């Protein structure tokens, strides 16, 4: 179990690195698909089918929006990029030492904080959350919902769902406002 998850996670990390370094934006998006669908498999292995369903649909819709809308109008952007990188070659070398120093320093700080934080985590597979008992024992009797995740989502934690719906509404209003080219009256 742990080994399978580790292997999938390593593949996801490789896909992520490739996605960030790909020359072509389309191949970057396909590699992003590797990471997203790998996450779906991880959710299935971790016994979270609700999350797997949501993630697979959301990932597909994100890829559709990105490929069909964003890339379709902006493909010629990619050809300019190689030329710019060629010019900047000598410029990069003078700063290389400083950049490496900053990267190593940042990595050390982040790993130190990870060590500090992981001391408070329980080992994988052991249950360490205090609140969970109240949400699990007799939860089906309290909410009437057989699916405990739905019970938590809409009964115990209704406020969070309301906030999520509000954020979605705000995002839609924002997208409509940003993308409006012509006013209604012009």
């Amino acid at each position, binding site marked *: 179990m742990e080994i399978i998850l580790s292997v999938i996670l390593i593949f996801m990390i490789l896909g992520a690195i490739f996605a960030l370094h790909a020359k072509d934006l389309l191949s970057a998006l396909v590699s992003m698909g590797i990471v997203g669908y790998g996450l779906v498999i991880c959710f299935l292995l971790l016994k*979270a089918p609700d999350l797997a369903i949501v993630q697979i649909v959301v990932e597909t819709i994100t890829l559709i929006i990105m490929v069909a809308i964003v890339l379709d109008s902006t493909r010629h952007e990619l050809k300019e990029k190689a030329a710019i990188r060629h010019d900047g070659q000598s410029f990069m070398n003078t700063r290389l030492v400083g950049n490496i120093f900053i990267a190593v320093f940042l990595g050390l700080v982040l790993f130190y904080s990870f060590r500090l934080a992981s001391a408070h985590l329980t080992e994988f*597979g052991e249950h*360490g959350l205090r609140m969970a008992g109240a949400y699990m024992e007799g939860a089906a009797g309290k909410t009437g919902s057989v699916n405990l995740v739905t019970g938590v989502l809409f009964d115990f934690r209704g406020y969070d769902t309301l906030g999520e719906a509000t954020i979605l509404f705000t995002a839609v209003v924002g997208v409509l406002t940003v993308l409006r080219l012509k006013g209604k009256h012009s």
Partner: protein
Amino acid sequence: MTLYLLCFLLFLVGLYGVLTRRNLIKIVIGLSFMEFSIFLLLVLIGYVKGGEAPILQPGMPATGFVDPLPQAMVLTAIVIGLATNAMLLAIAIRLYKKYGTFDIRKINQLKG
């Protein structure tokens, strides 16, 4: 603990993308990698060894489940991630219309 470490590495890869890439679309991709790693970390914390999916079956005992609380939180977070992604993409293609490029350094130079 290796799984937590790998999750953290995925987060670092996303952070690296956000800090060093010039293309706005790649920055959005890096941000979504950071989101993915956090989702996975939360679900990993909630996992119980040998646990079942938190859905009752008729005639089965109502114990031995995976923790449903992180799953519910991640469920909302995934949809919020989609909404923020859409917002970022809208701003990115609006910037593309104004400056004719996705390169963030060029956009910095072309102020105004």
